[in-house]
């Protein structure tokens, strides 16, 4: 399904702003036709990396290859890619239609084709009634869709997107997820996608690249990143709410836990993998948050706070309950280095790879 041919190679790339390193020796290789998602906390260097790939900025160290060639000297226009800017970057004096068609006009695409493509893309993005307006007359989300449309219409083999859906509502966002993924598949685009939305990352990505403070923490499929975080950073970053981390001694010697787990290890458990057991260590309920479908229960085990997810349909937990967890789903980390201790991994059946995009919403 994926060609493993590397389309974009980032080799030891650094970018310093004065003293601050926005990117620090980053290496990763993105395959052709892949949908790669950059995930990481605010300010970790995602936009910076995207801008380096686009050629809008110059790395202070390392090299970037596209299609095997070092593109250090190539201006953005020669890299054959499109981009959605985090700040939209719409031309304030042009109408929506003109904004979207900007690139095609520049490249002298025939008028007939321009109009045909415009119709298609505008309909897809729900912009058809707004085509004559100026950006200043649009809502935030509408502006974002225009920016997206401008990138999509160009049909370049590589598309870089910086939080393209962040200002859209849930429903539209869900629709756009599906649309974007479908376009990407249809045209075989190589997409590099920055997002904060984990649902986007999980549902769209072929590959997730987790970044932190200018470095790459983990590269993997959504399943890998979710189920087997490589570091406690990833564990604490991925998932809403993220993985709970317990000192090993809390469970030391308990059933289902490998030998030798103690204070030097941290045990990671996802909220949904924790449940009320018949028996076990006692946890205290400290608060309950209603999320619609679920309830998030904050509780405390020993002196460690944790969160458990329970279906909203079930009755709320009592003030004290017995702590239980889905055995075999725990992750074990070295408390000192934060690295995953893979020797403790259970051989889980790999999750079935999604094979088509669905009309999920």
């Amino acid at each position, binding site marked *: 399904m994926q060609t493993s041919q590397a389309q974009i190679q980032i080799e030891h790339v650094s970018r310093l702003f004065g003293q601050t390193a926005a990117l620090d020796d980053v290496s990763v290789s993105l395959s052709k036709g892949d949908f790669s998602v950059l995930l990481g906390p605010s300010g970790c260097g995602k936009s910076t990396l995207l801008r380096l790939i686009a050629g809008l900025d110059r790395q202070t160290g390392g090299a970037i290859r596209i299609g095997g060639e070092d593109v250090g000297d190539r201006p*953005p226009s020669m890299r054959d890619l499109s981009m959605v800017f985090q700040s939209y970057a719409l031309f*304030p004096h042009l109408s929506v239609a003109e904004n979207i068609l*900007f*690139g095609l006009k520049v490249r002298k695409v025939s008028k007939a084709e321009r109009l045909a493509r415009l119709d298609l893309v505008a309909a897809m993005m729900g912009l058809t009634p707004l085509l004559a307006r100026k950006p200043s007359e649009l809502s935030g989300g509408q502006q974002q869709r225009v920016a997206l449309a401008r990138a999509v219409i160009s049909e370049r083999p590589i598309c870089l997107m910086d939080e393209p859906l962040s200002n859209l509502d849930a429903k539209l966002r869900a629709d756009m997820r599906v649309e974007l993924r479908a376009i990407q598949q249809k045209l075989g685009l190589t997409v590099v996608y920055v997002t904060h939305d984990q649902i986007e990352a999980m549902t769209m990505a072929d590959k997730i690249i987790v970044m932190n403070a200018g470095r790459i923490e983990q590269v993997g499929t959504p399943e890998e990143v979710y189920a087997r975080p490589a570091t406690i950073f990833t564990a604490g970053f991925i998932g809403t709410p993220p993985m709970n981390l317990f000192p090993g001694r809390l469970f030391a010697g308990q059933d289902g836990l490998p030998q030798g787990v103690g204070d030097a290890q941290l045990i990671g458990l996802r909220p949904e993998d924790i449940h009320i057991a018949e028996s076990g260590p006692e946890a205290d309920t400290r608060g309950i948050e209603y999320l619609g479908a679920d309830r998030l229960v904050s509780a405390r085990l020993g002196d460690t706070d944790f969160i458990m997810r329970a279906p909203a349909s079930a009755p709320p937990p009592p003030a004290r309950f017995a702590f239980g967890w889905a055995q075999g789903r725990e992750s074990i980390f070295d408390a000192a280095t934060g690295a995953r201790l893979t020797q403790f991994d259970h051989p889980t059946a790999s999750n079935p790879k999604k094979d088509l995009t669905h009309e999920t919403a």
Partner: protein
Amino acid sequence: MNSRNWIYAWLMLLPAFVFLIAFTHLPAVTTLIDSFFTTAKGRRPAVFTGLGNYQKMLEDPIFVKAMVNSAIYAAITIPASIALSLAMALLVHRSFRGVSLVRMAFFTPTVLPLIAVANIWLFFYAPGFGLIDQIRLTFGLPSANYVGQPDTALYSVAAVTIWKEAGFFMIFFLAALQTIPLSLREAAAIEGCSRWTFFRRVTLPLIMPTTLFVSVNAVINAFRLVDHVFVMTKGGPDSATMLLLYYIFETGFRFWDTAYAAALTVVLIAILSVVGIGQFFLADRRVHYK
């Protein structure tokens, strides 16, 4: 918007208008009134002539000549100085090696007094030993008397104007170029937009407010910038460089025919109002501000 706003607006305008009215508009009205009288001389008081001064104009060959010259002069200097100033601003608004020298070069017209510079240009144009002739002579071309021949004098003067104006307007374009967000340039760069296309489709529309400002001023200056005429040609030879304002000046402050000068001034203001202010109100609505 608050309904009391207009009071604030008027208060903010008040100080400026006190000065404007005291030193521009009232004197201008006096000028207008003067234009309906004859010039008062010590021995002969002014008498009302109605449109007499204006009738005189129609029969005044120098006035006609000045009008024609002014039109030609405007037609040359306005587009040339706007285009050049914009080109210069685009050139120096980002840095490259030696940029400060180039910027300084373009700034010189603003810094050097035109009166002094006119003398230098006079040297450039001087037949025989002038700079241009020295260059021409090394190529074996005959000497030419640029400001001394009626067929080239006006263009020679216009060239100095363009030199002056382009450097002056460049400053405003330079200021305007800085307000264009970098991200737009980036977005365009990704679309593979050439320099020229970006300029035409993005830069130009976005600096329209400044372009409007500059073009209104260019129109006005085309009629207003005559300092160098004083030094270089005094309107000659044979009125070949007689421009309307220079003629007004000559009439008013050399011939001391203030009434006729007032009438000429009224004509000049009328022309400029129609052209300059009309241009502003026509274009202002179409300019994209934000």
